[in-house]
């Protein structure tokens, strides 16, 4: 791999790797360090990369594993992502917007309450848009297990959303 290919790889994966790391370590600086460390390791192994079938999946898996290692070493503060809610979307009325924001905070809480395996699969699918096969490769679990985890995670979120509506009306 030459420097140009490496730059393209960094541009393609940096945000995704950062998000995966952030979801695990809950610390912005550490998530950045993790993503950079993974890229540096990849660069150091540039001669061997031709042997790797799916480089993107390899990088994401390294990011996940390194993030888990880092969290084992230390506990980190959580980052309130929902507080930084995007303003790019169509803006509903202030009242409605506040309501959506409140429920988004609840969604975040429910996602955090999911078992780690279900949360990881949900993140990789619904945040990162990975295919079932890519998730299976990355987490090293069977494809059917990916589907089961995702089904359970989504059902949990759906149940809570609908429960919130019935309480609200």
């Amino acid at each position, binding site marked *: 791999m030459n420097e140009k290919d*490496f*730059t393209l790889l*960094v*541009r393609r994966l*940096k*945000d995704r*790797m*950062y*998000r995966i790391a*952030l979801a695990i370590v809950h610390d*912005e600086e550490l998530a*950045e360090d993790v*993503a*950079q460390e993974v*890229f*540096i390791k990849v*660069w150091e192994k540039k001669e061997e990369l031709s042997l790797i079938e799916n480089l993107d999946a390899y990088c994401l898996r390294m990011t996940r594993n390194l993030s888990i290692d880092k969290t084992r070493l230390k506990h980190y503060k959580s980052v309130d*992502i*929902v507080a*930084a*809610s*995007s303003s*790019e*979307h*169509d*803006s*509903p009325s202030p009242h409605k917007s506040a309501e*959506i924001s409140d*429920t*988004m905070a*609840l*969604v*975040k809480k429910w*996602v955090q309450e999911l078992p780690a395996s279900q949360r990881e699969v949900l*993140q990789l*699918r*619904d*945040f*990162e*848009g*990975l*295919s079932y096969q890519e998730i299976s490769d990355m987490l090293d679990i069977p494809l059917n297990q990916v*589907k089961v985890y*995702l*089904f359970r995670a*989504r*059902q949990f*979120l*759906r149940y809570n*959303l*609908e429960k*919130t*509506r019935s309480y609200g009306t």
Partner: protein
Amino acid sequence: MAPNDKIKDILTRYWEGESTVDEELLLAEYFTQSDIDPELLVYQPLFRYFEVEKDTASPAGFEADLMQKIAAPVIQLDRPVRKFNFQVIMRTAAGIALVIGTLVVIDWYQYKSKNLDLYADTYETPEAALAGLKSALIQVSDQIDGSSEIVHEQFQKLEDTQTISF
């Protein structure tokens, strides 16, 4: 199929985990707009939340910082070269030799003084020494004779005892 019906159909499959990645992108797009079917409004925060998460990007300067780290030459600390310092070695050797020499001299003096003690207050001439030695040997011989007689007597008593018993 009306647009809302299509979304409802995708959403149904979404909950079952049967929707495709492209269909899920359509869902995301639908829920970011303001004109949403009231029946589906309840699910909007979920997809809004996903979008917020997706928008989370690596910090500005990430790439530049990374490239700087990679471009920076690896500083490899040289191993300290061991220089052969003749003066230091000679001083050390001289010190060790001095200590050993001192110990040898002290030991020799001690040995000599002990030997002098051994010969102190003994005979003046070899003849006198021989006479003293003879006298000492005679005394030892007398002691041995005395002991032999005692032993002989004890054996005799033992034999007498055995005779009486049988």
